């Protein structure tokens, strides 16, 4: 290779970011270009994120290409726990639910009680089908008296529309008309303040409201995967790039850094939160009923209220409540000083379950695993062991390490 290639020529990233912004089609699933032409779909923030990447490590999230790691996972983790981490979460699915009977519709749709959700509030919800199996989970926003937004990990338009039969309600998929930025970490409030989100410090946990920033309206929710030290910003795709740059610029003095999907996964595992499609199958994806789950089996009993009015799956869940669990979603902590590659979970000679998500928590110095366990092993947690694989060059070694059952989210690093 000759020396004078263009490879080292500095690229004008700002211009690239501008060109991305000028092409909203990149974020449109119904664009004019053939569907097969581009398997790499960019979010409105793709170029902004690319500009921060020092690794060129990317991954697929709901069909979009998002950064896996931007710098170094351990650095990113430290930023999250001690400063603030910025991330592009635009690939989430977003649905706008509006109309006279929107509240009644959601009361029947979600398993929990949503009557306490006020305008500019948010509420985690789980929703089931008739058999009481979880279709999906998500975060519900109330944007107005008759207007809500549901944010989910997997697509649910068909089920939302089926559920809307008989209700005066409109359901729209607004996934591609709304970009999303997550700002997480103990310093995130101060960064927002510095970036002229005036009064952000008064925003209560789980609350949301509109801000005018540089003449652009931004909807900010104080929502996070874990704890309360975080915000999510919901913006027009056209404005996303600008807001991102604004946050990066104002956040730099606080140690803000852009982070990738891997960090989000670690934070999620630390918070003990199941991700649809990874830790559990939605009821419409589970081919056998055995691989579908009730909210109780996912540890989401707190999101179910059997005693309010009717909701889809209630009758089945009443029966399920007294029935034995078929599997149970749990968190395991494994004392091992470096990230492990899991093979199985054992209890003596028996297979006790399967690890669905794993992460190494630097705060705890432990490996964490989210796992679907057979319920009989919950009673004898001491017996649980993890089988893991360790590679050194071409050598593969198997290790058996005791695992401890953790109840509730892992206690994390310093709070703001």
């Amino acid at each position, binding site marked *: 290779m000759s020396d004078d290639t263009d490879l080292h020529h500095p690229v004008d990233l700002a211009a690239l970011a501008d060109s991305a912004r000028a092409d909203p089609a990149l974020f449109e699933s119904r664009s004019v270009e053939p569907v097969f032409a581009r398997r790499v779909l960019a979010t409105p923030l793709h170029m902004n994120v690319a500009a921060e990447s020092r690794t060129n490590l990317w991954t697929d999230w709901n069909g979009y290409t998002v950064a896996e790691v931007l710098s170094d996972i351990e650095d990113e983790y430290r930023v999250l726990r001690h400063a603030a981490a910025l991330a592009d979460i635009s690939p989430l699915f977003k649905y706008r639910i509006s109309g006279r009977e929107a509240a009644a519709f959601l009361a029947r749709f979600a398993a929990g009680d949503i009557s306490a959700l006020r305008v500019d509030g948010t509420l985690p919800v789980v929703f089931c089908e*008739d058999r009481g199996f979880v279709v999906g989970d998500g975060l519900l926003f109330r944007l107005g008296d008759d207007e809500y937004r549901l944010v989910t990990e997997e697509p649910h338009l068909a089920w939302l529309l089926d*559920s809307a*039969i008989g209700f005066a309600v409109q359901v729209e998929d607004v996934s591609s008309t709304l970009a999303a930025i997550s700002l997480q970490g103990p310093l995130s409030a101060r960064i927002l303040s510095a970036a002229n989100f005036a009064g952000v410090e008064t925003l209560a946990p789980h609350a949301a409201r509109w801000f005018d920033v540089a003449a652009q309206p931004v909807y900010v929710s104080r929502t996070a995967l874990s704890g309360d030290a975080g915000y999510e910003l919901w913006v027009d795709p056209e404005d996303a790039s600008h807001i991102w740059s604004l946050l990066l610029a104002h956040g730099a003095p606080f140690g803000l850094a852009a982070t990738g999907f891997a960090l989000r996964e670690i934070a999620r595992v630390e918070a003990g939160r199941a991700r649809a499609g990874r830790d559990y199958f939605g009821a419409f994806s589970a081919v056998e009923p055995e691989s579908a789950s009730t909210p109780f089996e996912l540890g989401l009993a707190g999101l179910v209220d059997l005693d309010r009015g*009717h909701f*889809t799956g209630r009758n089945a869940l009443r029966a399920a409540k007294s029935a034995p669990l078929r599997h149970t979603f749990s968190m395991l902590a494994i004392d091992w000083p470096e990230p492990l590659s899991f093979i199985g979970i054992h209890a003596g000679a028996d297979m006790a379950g399967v690890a669905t998500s794993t992460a190494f928590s630097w705060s705890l110095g432990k490996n964490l695993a989210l796992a679907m366990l057979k319920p009989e092993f919950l009673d004898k947690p001491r017996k649980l062991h993890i089988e893991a694989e360790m590679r050194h060059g071409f050598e593969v070694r198997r290790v058996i390490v005791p695992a401890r059952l953790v109840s509730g989210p892992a206690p994390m690093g310093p709070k703001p």
Partner: protein
Amino acid sequence: MSLPEKNFDVIVIGGGHNGLVAAAYLAKAGRRVLLLEASDRLGGALATEDITPDYRISTGAQMIDMLPRRIEKDLKLAGHGLRYAARYVPTIALNPTNGHLVLSRRRRDIEVLRKKSARDADAYLAFSKRMKSYAALIAPFLDKAPFAPGQSAARSALRRLVWRGALLDAASREALLRDLPGSIGHMLDDAFETPILKGALAFDTLVGTAAGPYDAGTVLRGIYRKAQRLAGAGAWVPQGGLGAFVDALAAAAAGLGVTIEVSAPVARILVQGEAVVGVETAAGETFHAPQVLSSIHPRATLLDLLGANRLDAGLVARLSRIPTRGATAKLNLALSGLPTIQGLAPAEYGARLIVAPSLDDIQEAHAQAKRGTFASNPVMEVTFPSVADPTLAPVGHHVMSIAIQYVPYEAEGGWDDKRDRLIDRAVETLSIYAPDLKQRIVAGELLLPADLERKFGLAGGDWHQGELRPDRLLSFRPTPELAQYGTPVAGLFLCGAGSHPGGGVTGMAGRLAAEAALARRARA
């Protein structure tokens, strides 16, 4: 409307015959029952009405051939004025060329057939026997509530079926397994060679459905209808038409203490907590009862009167997709005299006459209806009710009932300009047999599927509140979760033709739903 009494044990919505039967059985068991009918008369699709003054006819259903004798006795219908003008009405296949065929196993009729085809004469006896033995397998399932699959009742019911099947001879068993999932067209093609025999037998199986003769599942339908008829006493015609039957039923119900209100459409089913507490009428009146039975279409009951918010979304979606596809139109004619049907003996004018010369004619009519039009030679069932019941028309005059098969609910380009053409086609086709028909017509009335929907409240003009097809029979009728008459809301039951055992003048859905409601109450 104002009633002094507003509290009842049970409220029945809809005064069709299933609603009346349910109400009567509940009252007989000592319940205080209120029956609310939306229109100004009872009976739903069973009605005797004027075509034109002095000419009266059963505008909807024509005969009673599936009503179990037990219901008649339990409710003492004879004591309430039910008389029959004709019993054991025979069925005759009209032949456009020569020699009509009486479909019966009487030796005389078989010999007529034997002259056409010796093979078919023997085959007919075998066919009747076979269908009857199949029907006998199914019949025990029709007079009780369907079992719930996945439960022990399902296991024992299926085991019983295996044992019953084991009693059949080997040839019948082999035939049953092959016939059951198949089409009536293939079955008849295998068995017979005479076109009008095949046409008439296929028509009998298919009348009132949108299914075609070569559609899978039509044998099952035929067996099912046959099993329903086994419970009845034969094709009987009430004196005064089907309206008179309704009058007797209503009198029986009233005699048992049922409070009957007509012109009282229900607007809402009232629920408190998780249980039914009553209904509210369109006029804004409320009536209270811990149990409500609805004989109207399951979809209308649950989605319109109860509301989707009390039901699971999957159930609502499935209910909303129950196809309602009426494909039968009714043409009622007032005649200045009996038309002359060539080759038909005078005594035979009281019969059910089938005009379906061949399977191809039926197939063609079916194919046309799928495309939103109708065949130039429609297939039909014809009766002259006034032959047995002269009270229906002035002396010497007659009324004629014609069920025209495969008439689409929606016509390509709308029905407006096609009504007359359909009447013309039907009359022209009938004139092949009765050339003087046209000059005898005094007045007539055509009821398309959409008219039947308007007039009788039959969704889609479907006579059976949901087709009799394998995914809507027995434990699946109207849906698996609603098949035992109860609904997810305590105290609310379905009791119409949309529930097991389905359409036809049987009253069984009403009776079985009443039993389910009584059992629930007894347990409570």
